[in-house]
């Protein structure tokens, strides 16, 4: 049976303030799923619970028919993660960081070296592999994070704003990587604000609003259901966004006073 990742009524509160409320969905093997929501809607909190950095206040997360709490190590061994912010160890070089990530996953020797060298070359980082990460641009850091997440060939890849700071060619590359992973039966959860990319990359989107799932379907089905052509219009309606044209005018007028 192909493994599936399932959230069952997962909730999370901080200081009694609910941030994620009863979120349930299932990610199947070979699926690239977009996870959308406005700022503060609970996307990053869900992602942190999915990768085991944060325990849910209630509800369960199941992977391959087993609650991940029962054996978190086995689950994490099959998980790759790219966090929202590129928090890296600034004193390490790119290659050292990837070696650390590989070592922590039990990878070493020529096989690990080959993987690291290949990843650096494909992402165009070979020339700066020995420079300290503190000198890297945002996009370069993001590439290092993507490479580190994929080194151990995970079955589940959870990416929180993975394309942030990447140049156009890198974005195209990452989109193709998602497709290649999906073809190999991996699960990819792509949490993002970039609706255009999500529309092109993800076969399915889950929209979160104020901690609750308000839509979970393919873009085409959602468009047909809500009589909108673009994901942007669907998103605006689902999350009750104010008219951005009006807001922009208001701001400019305010500054002119």
């Amino acid at each position, binding site marked *: 049976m192909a493994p599936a990742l399932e959230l069952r009524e997962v909730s999370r509160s901080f200081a009694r303030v609910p941030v994620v409320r009863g979120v349930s969905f299932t990610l199947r093997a070979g699926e690239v799923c977009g996870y959308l929501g406005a700022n503060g809607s609970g996307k990053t909190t869900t992602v942190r619970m999915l990768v085991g950095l944060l325990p849910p206040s209630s509800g369960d997360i199941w992977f391959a028919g087993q609650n991940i709490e029962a054996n978190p190590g086995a689950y994490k061994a099959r998980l790759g993660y790219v966090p929202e912010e590129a928090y890296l*160890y600034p004193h390490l070089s790119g290659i050292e960081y990837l070696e650390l990530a590989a070592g922590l996953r039990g990878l070493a020797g020529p096989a690990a070296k080959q993987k690291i060298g290949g990843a650096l070359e494909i992402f165009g980082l070979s020339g700066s592999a020995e420079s300290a990460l503190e000198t890297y641009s945002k996009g370069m850091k993001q590439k290092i994070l993507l490479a580190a997440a994929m080194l151990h060939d995970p079955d589940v890849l959870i990416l929180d704003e993975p394309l942030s700071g990447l140049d156009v060619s890198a974005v195209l590359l990452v989109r193709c990587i998602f497709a290649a992973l999906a073809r190999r039966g991996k699960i990819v959860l792509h949490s993002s604000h970039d609706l255009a990319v999500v529309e092109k990359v993800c076969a399915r989107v889950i929209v979160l609003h104020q901690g609750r799932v308000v839509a979970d379907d393919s873009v085409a089905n959602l468009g047909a259901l809500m009589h909108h052509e673009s994901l942007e219009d669907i998103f605006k309606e689902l999350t009750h966004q104010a008219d951005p044209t009006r807001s922009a005018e208001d701001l400019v007028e305010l500054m002119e006073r």
Partner: protein
Amino acid sequence: MRLLFRFFLRSFFVGDGLAPGSDPSTLAITAAAFFAAPGLAVCMVMTVSGSKLNTDPAVAFFLALSMILAGLLALVLWDDLLPNRLDFLILRPQPLPWSRAVLAKLCAWGVLMTAFIATVNLFSCSMLPIVNAADQASGIAVLRRMGAQALGVAAGSAWIFLWILALRGAAAVFGEGRPVVRAARLALTAALLAAIVLSPELTEPDIYRHLAGAPPLWCAPLFWFLGITHALTGHASAAWAPLAWIGARQLAAALAAAALFYAWSCWQLPRRALATASGRTRGPWPSAFAAGEPRRAAVYRFALATLARSRRHSLLLAAWLGFALAVVLASLASLTWTFPSPTLAQTDAVALAAPLVLCCLIAVGLRHAFAIPIEIRANWLFRVAETEAAPVAAASELPFTATSRSRGGVPPAVPPRWRQAIFGRLHLDRLRRRGEADQREARGEAPQNVAVAQRLLAARDILLALAVLPPLLLGAVLAWRIWGWNIALLQVLFCGSLMLLWIEALLLRFPKIPFTCPYVSGRANLKLWGFAYWLTFSTFAFGSAALERRWWPHPDRIVAASAAALAAAIALRLWNRNWLAALPGCQFEDAPEPVVQQLFFGAGTDLSRS
């Protein structure tokens, strides 16, 4: 300009060392009180007791103290000495000339150093001339003494500060990340810290006279600037005037060097600030000795790189190294001064203790450094890579645990009855879980918690590489040169076993990966336990060395004692390894709330935290 000046001045007090929510002015006042205290204490003791220190040694001591503290301050605030990349990126787009920002930074440094030197020397410069004045001395003469002493300490402190400023500029120009630059800074910090511990010895008239008679190279600068003080007060000895001239010339040279490198580095700053991904970062050389297990080797290399490249951690380590050097030198010096002709046994014992002292204090320094995090928000990497299950002990991989013989495991080294007696409940728990572990083995799943233990054992590897091997080698070479190869062998055996015992004790129940957990200051409760720690350390280091010296005629005793220490170290190691392997995982505490510094270019100029 004024706003920038105030911003830079305040930024010296707002850094990693300030707890969130603390007021920088409170830190400034506390620091001022701390640095002014020695001068006040000495002068008060002299006033109350009616005793008079010999003036020259006392002035020399305060001058040395001021110079060392000025140097240490510059080294501690090394990254703030020049306008840095962040300053450039934030301030360059603002509508003000860049030169004004550089000038503001220089002014802030000038004010800080002036205030610092004034604070350190406030009581010594104002009270010492009064306390030590001859009964018939006029007010003018006392004022002249005060002024001369103030000028001497100001010149000496400025000299050392300017040279460090020049070094900082040169480091920025020629490559900041170079290992030689980092090593030089660490060596300088350690030397200054050792000097600060040894400086009170200057107040001993005999030592002072000995040094002043023919100043060795390492303390010549002290006497140049002491020359300024004495030349201005009209000292009877004519030898001070030439020294004062040397001091003045050296000060001018330091000023020229600082100006040159400061200007050069500021001129190059735009290029450095805007450059991306430049320079090569090489792993420190002990990385080559990493263990074969990938997790353990990864953590080992990460910890080594952190120690070598993180300013805060390397400074902390330098402080402990400086302390260790000071203890060794002070014990040698005090032996000479306490006993005019020390016996061979006394001298030998102090020399034999040196490697143990170095090992003990470097190991404590490393253990201290491990507790201080680097980029705490980046520890998610270790947390998501915890690919081991919690409660399942991997019995087959652990020593002292029974395992399924049918799978060809290694027979346990110690009979079960002994194991139960030694490890008690822990062992019973493990036996209870044995069935589950065997089931995992039967399913072909990898043993789990052994991997947790492997990562945690990397801390031990670091201690072995940095705190045991170098002092042991140093001790062996010294012993071979002084006493011959047979004593050197005994020294390696005895010290090596004691060092292993010490590091096992230090790492007892340490379930953290170095540098990945938040630091809770005060947890060690030094106020309560400090004396006990010191007593343990000195008994361990110096007592062991004295015993070793006494047992030289009986090598069998040294071998027996070493074997006992080694057995204790192995027992501790196995107990600790079992304890670690039974853990659900490495310990990571929650990261603190992020702290955001704001510039407040608007109406308010206070730096606040949100």
